[in-house]
């Protein structure tokens, strides 16, 4: 694979996707320490919000330690070169949240929908575009549909005004060939000026290979997370990815030692659990289940005595999508009842 001198924009997820792994409890000091560390390492874009995006604060997904407003106001003024993005999932957050993020200095809005439901993003993408923001359409769980179907949805988002479209492997299910096929078709079918991005999860250990495949097929924005801090087995670990890109002579603009130090000295010590491919995270990738279901399923295992792995497989069978965290307890209770009935 030859990626020599290709330019890539690395986008850090540790302060948004990483919120899932921390049950949305990252402190303001931790946020600022990580963000300023990444800023110094040269990361150009950092996402900051509740794990489920703007307005994600809820009983269903978890109340965060601080509001989106507090996080954004703490982080943004401290940054020298890096810009801050915010995620917005229509159905959870609204245009009101988007305006708040804009007022706090967010410059990139990523409007996320399930990969088949792009038409719910129209009002948010249009609003973000009208504010002059870098506007990204973020198609989640993109493994669930074909490359051709993904292009149809991507074109909707592009028609509303998105200047960048993401193929998002929310379940960490894709293999490099799946990524190549999707990104290549997006690249050939979308307008030449529309950027393409890829967001990976490490549940099958493929996040680095998948991100490279995405770049080779035409993606110029790659999401990752310092030390991998993210849902499931985490996102593409950015310090590892940077080292790989360095070896391949890619034009990445990151100071490798500095990002290694942020991973080692700041992020790893604050993890509640090691971010690794344990059997439950592996099940996410194997069965194609939304990565943020991991900790919910593990808690349901403790509460209802049904193995997390079995709950996750069942949620995969039911074709649940991102945001359906309520189905985890519900499904665990139903499975526990069935187990009890079988024993009786």
């Amino acid at each position, binding site marked *: 694979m030859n990626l020599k001198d290709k330019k890539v924009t690395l986008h850090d997820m540790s302060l948004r996707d990483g919120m899932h792994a921390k049950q949305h409890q990252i402190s303001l000091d931790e946020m600022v320490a990580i963000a300023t560390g990444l800023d110094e390492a040269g990361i150009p874009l950092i996402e900051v919000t509740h794990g489920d995006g703007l307005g994600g604060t*809820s*009983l*269903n997904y978890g109340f965060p330690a601080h509001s989106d407003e507090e996080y954004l106001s703490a982080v943004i003024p401290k940054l020298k070169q890096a810009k801050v993005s915010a995620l917005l999932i*229509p*159905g*959870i957050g*609204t*245009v*009101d949240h988007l305006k708040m993020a804009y007022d706090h200095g967010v410059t990139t809005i990523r409007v996320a929908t*399930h990969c*088949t*439901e792009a*038409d*719910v993003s*129209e*009002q*948010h993408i249009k609003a973000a575009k009208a504010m002059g923001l870098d506007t990204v359409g973020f198609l989640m769980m993109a493994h669930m549909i074909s490359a051709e179907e993904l292009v149809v949805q991507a074109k909707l988002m592009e028609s509303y005004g998105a200047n960048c479209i993401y193929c998002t492997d929310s379940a960490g299910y894709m293999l490099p060939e799946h990524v190549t096929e999707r990104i290549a078709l997006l690249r050939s079918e979308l307008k030449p000026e529309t950027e393409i991005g890829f967001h990976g999860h490490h549940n099958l250990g493929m996040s680095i290979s998948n991100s490279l495949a995405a770049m080779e097929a035409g993606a110029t924005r790659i999401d990752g997370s310092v030390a991998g801090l993210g849902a499931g087995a985490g996102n593409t670990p950015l310090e590892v990815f940077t080292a790989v890109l360095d070896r391949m002579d890619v034009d990445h603009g990151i100071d490798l030692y500095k990002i290694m130090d942020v991973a080692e000295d700041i992020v790893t010590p604050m993890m509640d659990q090691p971010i690794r491919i344990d059997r439950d995270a592996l099940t996410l990738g194997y069965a194609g289940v939304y990565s943020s279901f991991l900790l919910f399923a593990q808690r349901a295992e403790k509460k209802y005595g049904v193995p997390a792995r079995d709950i996750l497989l069942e949620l995969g069978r*039911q*074709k*649940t*999508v991102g*945001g*359906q965290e*309520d*189905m985890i*307890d*519900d499904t665990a*209770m*139903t499975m526990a009842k069935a187990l009890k009935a079988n024993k009786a």
Partner: protein
Amino acid sequence: MKKIKCALIGSGNIGTDLLYKLQRSEILEPVWMVGIDPDSEGLARAREMGIKTTADGIDGLIPHIEADEVKIAFDATSAYVHADNSAKVNAKGVLMIDLTPAAIGPYCVPPVNLDQLDSDIPNVNMVTCGGQATIPMVAAVSRVQPVEYGEIVATVSSKSVGPGTRQNIDEFTRTTSGAVEQIGGAKRGKAIIIINPAEPPLLMRDTIHCLTESEPDQAAITESVHQMISEVQKYVPGYKLKNGPVFDGRKVSIFLEVEGLGDYLPKYAGNLDIMTASAARTAEMFGQQMLDGQS
């Protein structure tokens, strides 16, 4: 027996499903259906059923209101045109039942506040599908003890969500969370909607979380929830408690499934069925009052 005559504005899925429900009513009689497309399936079906139709929108109906004794109109169009439709029928003394999220008139969730609405109001709003499915449960908790925060998650099949809702999904979120507070009785409300494209389409699923101000009275809340489920089942037989109420500290969680009657809309579209059933039930109460007033 004399029935109260009704007009349906909107000849799409909701209007057509409502037409089937009104045809079974002992109190209401659908006489007009209003559309904007002369070739629409909904208007053709209404004509076959012997209903008068117009494809000229609301203005095609207005000249006939008095002669055909229309007393109640249902609006199943969109929030954008609802105010105009409502003003025009109200000027003729017709009660408007609003199935759009426009929310000009007071919210109505039948088992919670139908009996508290004034008989002379000109417009009643049916909130949203998610609101109709979940607010009875918020109210079932808040009638036992104060609810500091109520949150609902409505998951609906992709096929049951029309373009109007998709283009303005924020309206769903705002209207529903407002009604969780106002009708459900939660001091603060939040609403989340998830659209799932699975095939075969999933039945509507709803999760209701409440944070009570003090330790929840588990026995009283459980009984209240079961009573409320029975109330809703009177007009939506497929309204089922799947799990819960589950108690975790001050958090009360209730998990529901809503299967539609399958009148015109498929059974999985419990979200649409509960809207048309609630609208029909609301109109029947007002219709009964009108009949009582006449006798």
